[in-house]
């Protein structure tokens, strides 16, 4: 990792062998697609797990035919055991947060388009880039392999709180080797993303073509740059935390395990560790991780919206500063995950105020998007629908943050479905909508074919309405005090809420099925789609100045020169109402007033 070799990205020759072309490729575009494929597989696995969980929650102790084939002990006779529910839940969270929400908007699209948007031939360290993907892929395999352990994967949740994560199999099924595999997988994932961040940062800072100042970068490139800076800090902290946890597990150290813990009437051979230490280290990563998932989405959505509004944002600079502010603040607020954790109650107050401050940049971003729509010539297509849907979801998920930022209200809402609804909307659904917007927008460039618009719109409508049907009721359940991470709702208090759970389950099954439309569209269009022009959306940034799909070195042995800010829409030019960044044509504004 510290080998300082410079494989000057711009100079490597096109590969000839199949393996070099498609498997161990150094080409950022292939690596981007590999990340996308990984995210796609992971997303469908994660979604499948959520289906199983939802069915179990709505119809408790009902046999799911065939489930016993997945795990004989986890689902004897097809009936899910409580531990299997938790194991599926843990894997769902881990797969979605790490291998979908981090890889798809950041690593996949960022890899493909960041170098093109800055006009480079490739990343500066293609070998590191290739390693980044393959290390991440290995991390995914390591995680998935825990499904095949005798007692299944870990059940500790994606947050893996100590000391449950460190005492071993005595604490429950999957807590032995399952946890070690989880920790190893996440540590590997951190390495992969650190390597990625290294490339993203150097690409942005050093490989910009002439005329492309930082402020002339498209918003998507800014978002990836900010995200890579966050990733560099966050993953560099999570990795040591995972190492400590592995040591507690296999080497008998006591970083996180306190003295005199009695499990199954046996005193555990650890002493003096600090439970809260894990939470501090984890959430120092965990909160920025939320922004790592959502900020690329913000960039993609801005990028897509601009091309479809046919006018500029009210202020591009403000958007960039707001994203930067979100990134900075994300490190000062992580304690709001720990209000009732036994942390010093004064610290809770100290973490509460920066959390509330975060609403300001978030609000600014939303206001700028929304009010930029004013007076625009909005084009409605699958990409812009998902981008607009993103705004709606981001608002809905964001307002519930008002509640959770306050420690006093958190007493009631902590660890309830309110939290589940909040983060699923704001970092799950919203980020997914960003991914979809990016996919419908960039698919022509990546494959040379258009996606089917009718199917795209059907996918949008079902996803948009479905997501609200799933996640809005989560908030109501939470307000009524429905605790999360329960394998079934056995107490009298929660019985009346089960119909709501059934409604959610039906909605989740339908919405999940709607994603199959997307999958079909993706695969069908890849081979049978209409051929795409070089610039089908009449967009301005550099990726649209090159061929579709881009040649191996992105610009065919040339370097573009940038003459303009990235989004010259709503102007009069020889090609229409836009001027491309790489066009030297002078710009006549169509705007009333700047």
């Amino acid at each position, binding site marked *: 990792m510290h080998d300082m070799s410079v494989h000057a990205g711009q100079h490597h020759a096109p590969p000839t062998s199949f393996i070099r072309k498609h498997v161990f490729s150094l080409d950022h575009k292939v690596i981007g697609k590999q990340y996308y494929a990984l995210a796609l597989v992971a997303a469908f696995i994660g979604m499948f797990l959520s289906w199983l969980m939802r069915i179990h929650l709505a119809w408790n102790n009902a046999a799911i035919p065939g489930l016993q084939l997945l795990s004989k002990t986890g689902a004897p006779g097809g009936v899910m055991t409580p531990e299997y529910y938790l194991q599926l839940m843990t894997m769902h969270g881990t797969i979605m947060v790490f291998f979908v929400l981090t890889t798809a908007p950041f690593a996949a699209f960022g890899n493909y388009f960041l170098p093109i948007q800055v006009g480079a031939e490739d990343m500066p360290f293609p070998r590191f880039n290739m390693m980044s993907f393959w290390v991440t892929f290995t991390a995914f395999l390591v995680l998935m392999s825990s499904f095949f352990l005798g007692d299944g994967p870990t059940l500790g949740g994606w947050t893996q709180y100590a000391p449950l994560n460190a005492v071993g199999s005595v604490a429950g099924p999957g807590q032995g080797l399952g946890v070690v595999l989880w920790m190893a997988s996440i540590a590997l994932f951190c390495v992969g993303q650190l390597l990625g961040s290294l490339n993203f940062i150097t690409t942005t800072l050093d490989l910009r073509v002439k005329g492309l100042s930082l402020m002339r970068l498209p918003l998507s490139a800014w978002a990836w740059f900010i995200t890579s800076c966050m990733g560099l800090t966050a993953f560099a902290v999570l990795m040591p935390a995972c190492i400590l946890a592995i040591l507690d597990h296999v*080497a008998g150290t006591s970083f996180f395990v306190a003295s005199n813990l009695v499990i199954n009437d046996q005193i555990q051979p650890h002493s003096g560790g600090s439970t809260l230490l894990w939470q501090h280290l984890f959430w120092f990563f965990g909160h920025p991780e939320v922004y790592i998932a959502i900020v690329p989405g913000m960039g993609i959505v801005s990028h897509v919206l601009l091309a479809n509004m046919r006018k500029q944002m009210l202020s591009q600079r403000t958007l960039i500063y707001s994203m930067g502010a979100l990134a900075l603040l994300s490190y000062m607020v992580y304690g709001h995950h720990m209000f009732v954790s036994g942390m010093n109650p004064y610290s809770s107050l100290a973490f509460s105020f920066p959390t509330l401050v975060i609403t300001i940049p978030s609000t600014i971003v939303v206001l700028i998007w929304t009010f930029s729509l004013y007076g625009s010539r909005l084009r409605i297509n699958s990409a812009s629908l998902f981008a607009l849907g993103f705004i709606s979801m981001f608002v809905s998920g964001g307002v519930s943050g008002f509640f959770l930022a306050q420690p006093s209200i958190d007493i009631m809402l902590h660890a309830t479905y309110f939290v589940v609804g909040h983060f699923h909307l704001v970092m799950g659904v919203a980020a997914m909508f960003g991914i979809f917007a990016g996919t419908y927008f960039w698919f022509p460039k990546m494959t040379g074919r258009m996606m089917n618009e009718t199917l795209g719109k059907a996918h949008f409508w079902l996803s948009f309405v479905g997501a609200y049907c799933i996640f809005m009721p989560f908030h109501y359940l939470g307000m009524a005090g429905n605790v999360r991470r329960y394998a079934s709702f056995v107490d009298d208090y929660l019985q009346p809420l089960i119909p709501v759970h059934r409604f959610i389950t039906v909605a989740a099954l339908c919405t999940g099925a709607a994603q199959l439309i997307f999958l079909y569209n993706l695969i069908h269009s890849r081979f049978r789609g209409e051929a795409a022009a070089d610039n089908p959306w009449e967009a301005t940034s550099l990726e649209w100045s090159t061929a579709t799909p881009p040649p191996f070195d992105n610009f065919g042995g*040339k370097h573009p020169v940038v003459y303009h800010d990235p989004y010259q829409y709503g102007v009069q030019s020889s090609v229409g109402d836009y001027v491309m960044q790489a066009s030297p044509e002078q710009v006549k504004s169509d705007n009333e007033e700047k």
Partner: protein
Amino acid sequence: MATTVHEPPQIDSRRLAGERHSGNGAGGGIVPDGDLRVAVEYSPPPSSTAIWVVLFAITMMFAAFTSALVVRKGSSLDWQTFTLPSVLYFNTLVLVISSVTLELARRRIASFMVVLRSQGESPARWLYVTLFLGVLFVAGQYVAWSQLRAEGLYLATNPSSSFFYLLTVTHALHVLCGLGGLIYVIRKLSKSVLRRNQLDAAARYWHFMGILWLYLLLLLRMKL
């Protein structure tokens, strides 16, 4: 209706990318014909940026370990202090000297690059000395670990020993990576295709290892 909100292309080099690295790329005027321009010589120095990125990541990692140490010590009753093996101070000296020899090497190579083959002596000589000192440091750390093990202090014996091994081993692994960097530089140098920024990157990394070690030694002395 206002016109020309945006300036025509800037030729002023201060607005160009790569401005921070004068001498690397950014040469030649822009051909204002609007077509994509045939690439001229353009060699940005991402390794200079990259090394700072790497050092930042390592700093974050050790910051995480440090905060873990402070929290773990503050919250526990089972912390037993022990005296650091004195060979550590010898190792510190070795690492400091290695930084000096690396600087000597860098100067030699700089002049070697300017005046090709000025003297007959190989500019890599001081690099070999640095390499040797680096290996000596790692060997010295190994001696320290053996001494502690002989005293019955293992990784899991006590939180203080856990942190000692954790910090020193992690640091030593990073030093080994630095040694790899030095070997890479020596190899490149022998083929005389070494780039200045590669040498600088390896040197910065090596010096950082020294500074990091001084910090760790101070931390271990104060906290263990």
